[in-house]
């Protein structure tokens, strides 16, 4: 009798294990709290779908491109991957992913995507990535510093006000021996610099390409934006020519910087420190310019291997699950509050997002951030869809950052830096 019972249990277990499908995904958010948030969503999904096992594998952003390409070459890709437009373009160019129009239309009907955030994933008439969250840049600032040196906690609204405010804070604090800098701008050879410089470029309508994919970068608007960045950079801390995310965040948190165009992701650090001296405003723009900023949508793309393994249904189930507003809030408010922002109208209005303790603590800042998505663009995608796939290499090659380095280090004039960068972009396109 015991033997029969034992065999039955083993058979039952074996049947259960064999009936379970395992899907694997990669993401690149390596900090522990982000991994934990991903796991929380995975566990909730598995409770609802016990026949599907979901495995998250963390590949840090620094290795994302190399490992993705190596996996494509070796035929060892996961079922799907969290991504950025450039990485999705790379995977598309490597012929490794499948179009996602059906699932996007389904989610769009249900939760209403912010249209501008879908556009970067439109290549040759199909969507190749489904946006999960987005990252808008706004002008974040320390109200107490503005209050102390400008006599108001009202942030600047246009370029002139921004330049004057940055100058006044820097000079006044230096006179008091404080060394607080009016603005935080980076000029390191990295993505952080590109994102900041593009935020400034968006204020005067710089476009890398026109609707037909022709290069339009060398324009009066670009010259104006770079000139302004150079002027503003004078009131940024010394050494910012070598800065990336870590340095600028640390300096801002240490109260050495009053304002900076940046993502809202410092909220968690401030919240953990019990410091609520943090707010945000729309990115200032010139009086004759336009309201605009950078938004970086993050997506999921699905590898062909998922289809070959017969895992597509399971992957779609997972995507439908995480796009539910209450679950999506785990990927935004709980993964990186203020930095990762809901991308569907339903999720943007959901209580699950706004009731999060950090989001509600910095509610004004987060309202500004969510609203800024409507004005956000991504460089190379200004006219909508991916019109020129060379943007992957242009972005990866840090051409915008290199241009800014050449200007702020005094190596080149603004005109020469812009024309040289345009030439390099042209080389990418021709190749």
């Amino acid at each position: 009798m015991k033997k029969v019972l034992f065999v039955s249990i083993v058979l039952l277990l074996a049947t259960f294990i064999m009936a379970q499908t395992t899907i694997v995904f990669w993401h690149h958010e390596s900090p522990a709290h982000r991994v934990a948030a991903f796991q929380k969503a995975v566990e909730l999904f598995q409770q609802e779908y016990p026949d599907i096992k979901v495995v998250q594998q963390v590949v840090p952003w620094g290795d994302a491109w190399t490992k993705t390409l190596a996996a494509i070459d070796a035929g060892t890709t996961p079922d799907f991957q969290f991504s950025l437009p450039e990485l999705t373009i790379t995977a598309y160019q490597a012929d490794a992913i499948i179009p996602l129009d059906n699932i996007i239309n389904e989610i769009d009907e249900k939760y209403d995507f912010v249209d501008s955030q879908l556009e970067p994933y439109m290549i040759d008439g199909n969507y190749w990535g489904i946006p999960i969250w987005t990252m808008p840049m706004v002008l974040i600032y320390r109200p107490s510093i503005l209050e102390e040196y400008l006599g108001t906690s009202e942030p600047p609204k246009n370029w002139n006000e921004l330049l004057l405010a940055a100058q006044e804070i820097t000079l006044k604090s230096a006179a008091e021996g404080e060394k607080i800098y009016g603005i935080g701008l980076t000029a390191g050879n990295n993505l952080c610099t590109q994102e900041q410089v593009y935020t400034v470029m968006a204020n005067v309508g710089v476009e890398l390409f026109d609707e037909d994919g022709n290069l339009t970068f060398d324009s009066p608007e670009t010259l104006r934006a770079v000139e302004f960045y150079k002027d503003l950079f004078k009131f940024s801390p010394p050494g910012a020519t070598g800065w990336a995310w870590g340095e600028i965040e640390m300096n801002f948190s240490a109260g050495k910087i009053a304002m900076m165009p940046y993502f809202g992701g410092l909220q968690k650090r401030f919240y953990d420190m019990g410091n609520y001296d943090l707010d945000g405003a729309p990115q200032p723009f010139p009086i004759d310019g336009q309201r605009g900023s950078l938004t970086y949508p993050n997506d999921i793309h699905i590898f062909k291997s998922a289809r070959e393994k017969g895992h597509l249904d399971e992957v779609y189930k997972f995507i439908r699950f995480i796009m539910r507003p209450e679950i999506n809030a785990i990927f935004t408010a709980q993964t990186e509050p203020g930095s990762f922002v809901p991308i569907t109208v339903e999720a943007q209005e959901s209580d699950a997002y706004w009731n999060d303790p950090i989001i509600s603590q910095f509610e004004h800042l987060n309202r500004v951030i969510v609203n800024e998505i409507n004005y956000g663009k991504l460089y190379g995608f200004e006219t909508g869809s991916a019109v020129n796939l060379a943007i992957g290499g242009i972005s990866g090659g840090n051409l915008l950052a290199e241009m800014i380095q050449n200007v702020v280090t005094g190596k080149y004039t603004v005109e020469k830096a812009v024309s040289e960068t345009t030439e390099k972009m042209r080389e990418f396109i021709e190749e």
Partner: protein
Amino acid sequence: MRSRFKGFLLLTPVLSLVALITILPIVNMIYNSLLKTQFGFGKGEFIGLSNYVKLFNDEVFVGAVGKSFIWTLENLLIQLTIPLLIALLLNKQTKFYRVTKSLILIPWVLPMVVISIVWRWLLEPNIGFVNHLITNMGFEPVNFMGSLNLTFHVLVLINSWHFIPFGTILMLAALSTVPQSLYDAAKVDGAGSFKQFIYITFPLIGKIIWFVGLLAFMWSFNTFDLIWLTTQGGPSNATMTLPTYIYKLAFKMYDAGRSSAAAFISTLILIGVGVLYFTLLSPKSDTEVKQP
């Protein structure tokens, strides 16, 4: 004859394995260097030597080759002299000998990722510890990591700081093999410390110095992680060496063809310098002691 054949037969599996893991990637690299290919796999168009022509017309690449040589020379200079000096000091067998020998190893055991991040923070101009000391002494903060003229040399120092313990330990080991009787005899003959070093120590540890030099050359020339993690070749390509540019071409600019061509040129440079190093600088014997 039969036993020689047997020997070759026995060696075949190992030789095949060596060929597989060393020669095959090199052949693949050369093949890719003749193609127009984004990622190094999938379809590629044969374009002959165009990638090489483009590279030699690319001022960043030409600059990177020059910087790689300067980088290697500066590193070699520091990585050969400082370990030797430290080893000579430690060889005195003071009471702090053991503690110092252990402590000095710390930089060597640290992973380069940690070293890069620690130094980036230490040298940060606004809140970094080093600049804190500098400004407290009444000087202006120094932009160590973002300067066109300074950053390259700062990275050389950090790279050497990492290597010095390893070189020191090797040289200390070599020094311990020099018989004390030779120094005693030299003292009797009236030789001072300097002459003892020139005529006894240096010839007897010459082979180790040569070996340390070889390792320092190869490791320095191939340094990638430190530069990428601190400056990514910036500011304005001031720290862009060959390995950094090869990586950037392949994985940031998606030009695997041109990256392969650059990698092949780098391989040729390494082989060339290696051959020169072996033929010109190889020590003849480590047992001869010159007569003063």
